[in-house]
């Protein structure tokens, strides 16, 4: 355990978010490992800078502006969709149409039989659509895998520190932690 790099736990370590046993394990490792020690120094600078984040004062007259709007209902805060997800069907449709058009045109001008051109053009559309669909699917799966992997690494890393002898409470807690990510991924 102590020989594994601890880079992904350094922010928690710096912020005192790790259980005592794990925190001392990180300390021990950092003393021995130059790479993690250097990384810790960088992150310590980052944390010190973040401590300097200024507080801002809300501008005067904000209440008056707000009061004038209190009677109207607020704009609904819709859930934010995953970035780029809206683009995929459009990209897919546009790609298929464009590909079909270009190939159909090329085939019609380059070949004599119109039926053959239509057949080959359709086949090209289907293949293109399939390829684009597979690419979109792979991209989506990779994103989900990354999210799940992140969760699993985290849970696996903390399981033995956080599980009580019975284990059920920690398991329930971990399920709660994973649930939003799983929900997002599905």
């Amino acid at each position: 355990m102590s020989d594994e790099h601890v880079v992904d736990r350094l922010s928690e370590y710096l912020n005192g978010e790790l259980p005592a046993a794990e925190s001392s394990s990180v300390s021990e490792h950092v003393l021995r490992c130059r790479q993690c020690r250097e990384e810790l120094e960088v992150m310590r600078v980052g944390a010190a800078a973040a401590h300097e984040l200024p507080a801002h004062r809300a501008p005067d007259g904000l209440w008056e502006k707000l009061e004038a709007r209190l009677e109207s209902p607020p704009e609904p805060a819709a859930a934010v969709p995953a970035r780029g997800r809206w683009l995929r069907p459009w990209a897919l449709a546009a790609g298929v149409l464009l590909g079909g058009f270009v190939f159909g045109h090329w085939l019609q001008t380059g070949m004599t039989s119109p039926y053959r051109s239509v057949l080959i053009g359709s086949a090209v559309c289907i293949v293109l659509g399939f390829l684009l669909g597979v690419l979109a699917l792979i991209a989506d799966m990779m994103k989900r895998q990354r999210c799940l992997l992140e969760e699993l690494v985290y849970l696996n890393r903390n399981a033995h520190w956080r599980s009580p002898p019975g284990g059920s409470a920690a398991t329930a807690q971990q399920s709660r932690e994973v649930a939003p990510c799983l929900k997002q991924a599905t």
Partner: protein
Amino acid sequence: MKEQELIQACQAGDRTAFRSLFESHKDRVYTLAMHYCRDPAQAEDITQEVFLELFHSLRQFRRQAAFSTWLHRIVVNRCLNARRRDRRWTDLEETPARAWTARERQEESYGQQQLAEAIEDAMQRLDPELRLLLALRYREELSYAEIAEATDCSIGTVSSRLNRAHRRLGKQLWEYRSCLK
């Protein structure tokens, strides 16, 4: 009046109580919005929207959740919404935020000003979501679990994002390390 009493009075329709609630939280909300969008006009809009939503949904608030957790959730949602709505944000450009904070810091020494400006620049280069997480952690002093609740993410996700934020900030400010430690 205690916060719980204020909330109950607001739920009963007492607008004076709502103003008190507004006065006690407006700077915190505005600060989070400022760190997220780094534009005073945007931050003001977000702050207004947060309190509008609060005003209209306060009746649904039950004591099972802490009020601050609830407020943080609204702030995070409103920030994300504002960014999605307004795609003109350009994170690497000089925004009014820097000039604004520079005016605030006129009384500081030259060295302090330089450091403050370097931190501003480094923050400017971070993703808005990472800036918001840092502000929740270091301004609001939330634990990772509380941040996870406010942002509807797992603790693991919060941890890895904060790891990234610390690393990026640290690398950009490495030359100032002697002033920062």
